[in-house]
């Protein structure tokens, strides 16, 4: 599988990548983007199978990116990995067709639980 990690923090992209491996999701191709706008271009060019995105990012937020993808008819499974996780945000994410919502801080076990259904 090809997994796209979208986060404006280099540190967090590194942590998500490392936690994916610790959670047992090894052998996948992982690609990265720094914000929603750059990620939209990467989705078009690289066609990932799964997208893990932060919510708050400059240029284009995670929720903005998800809506833009769906407006373009791109149905790639999309989940949030974010520091904020109010009930209202979870509802907004679900309404926009996000398939999971993982809040930071997270352990490999929590990530495994959130992604199990979505990584082959």
């Amino acid at each position, binding site marked *: 599988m090809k997994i796209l990690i979208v986060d404006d923090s280099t540190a967090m992209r590194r*942590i998500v990548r490392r936690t994916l491996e610790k959670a047992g999701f090894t052998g996948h191709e992982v690609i990265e983007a720094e914000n929603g706008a750059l990620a939209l271009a990467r989705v078009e060019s690289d066609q990932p199978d799964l997208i893990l995105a932060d919510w708050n990012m400059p240029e284009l937020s995670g929720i903005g990116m998800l809506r833009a993808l769906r407006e373009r008819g791109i149905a790639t499974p999309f989940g949030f990995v974010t520091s904020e*996780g109010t009930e209202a945000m979870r509802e907004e994410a679900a309404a926009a067709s996000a398939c999971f919502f993982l809040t*930071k801080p997270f352990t490999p076990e929590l990530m495994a639980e959130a992604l199990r259904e979505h990584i082959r």
Partner: protein
Amino acid sequence: MTALPAKRVEVSPAGLMALTVDALVEVCQTMQEITLEARGECASFDASTSNDLECGSTISLMRPGKSWNLALFGRLTSCQTLARALLAMEPSEAIGNEELADALGEILNMMAGVAKRKMAPEEAKQVQLGLPLFITGTECFRYLAKGIRVYCQRVAGPAVDVEVILVWKEGS
């Protein structure tokens, strides 16, 4: 029919500081496997008696008519220990300023996110998180002069001794 104003739930400085310290402990335990604990009591910040503040990161929690800034300041070695642990680096590995700023910013971001999740839902709804800002040297003290009230709580653990700082602002 006139709409009723949204119910406002007030958070006291002591309540917010307690939430924040708990959030930092949770973040460091979960992401870095570092056990931290509060040392002493939360007090008003006093530059003359405070530990050396060499660098740190700060984040705004904005809400209508009021804002708070949360900060994590400490000696460079403590901040580097936290950053290295987050990035899974060896204790002896060199860490650049850019990596340090990014890692501390993420710690602050997670800390603020956890604190917000632990607020009463009506309060949390009004709070918007800003972007983390990395500060070094005398800028740390200059930054602390911006609040009308500044509180600090020492938090420490193995090779880490930092100050969690709450800058309280009103009318902004």
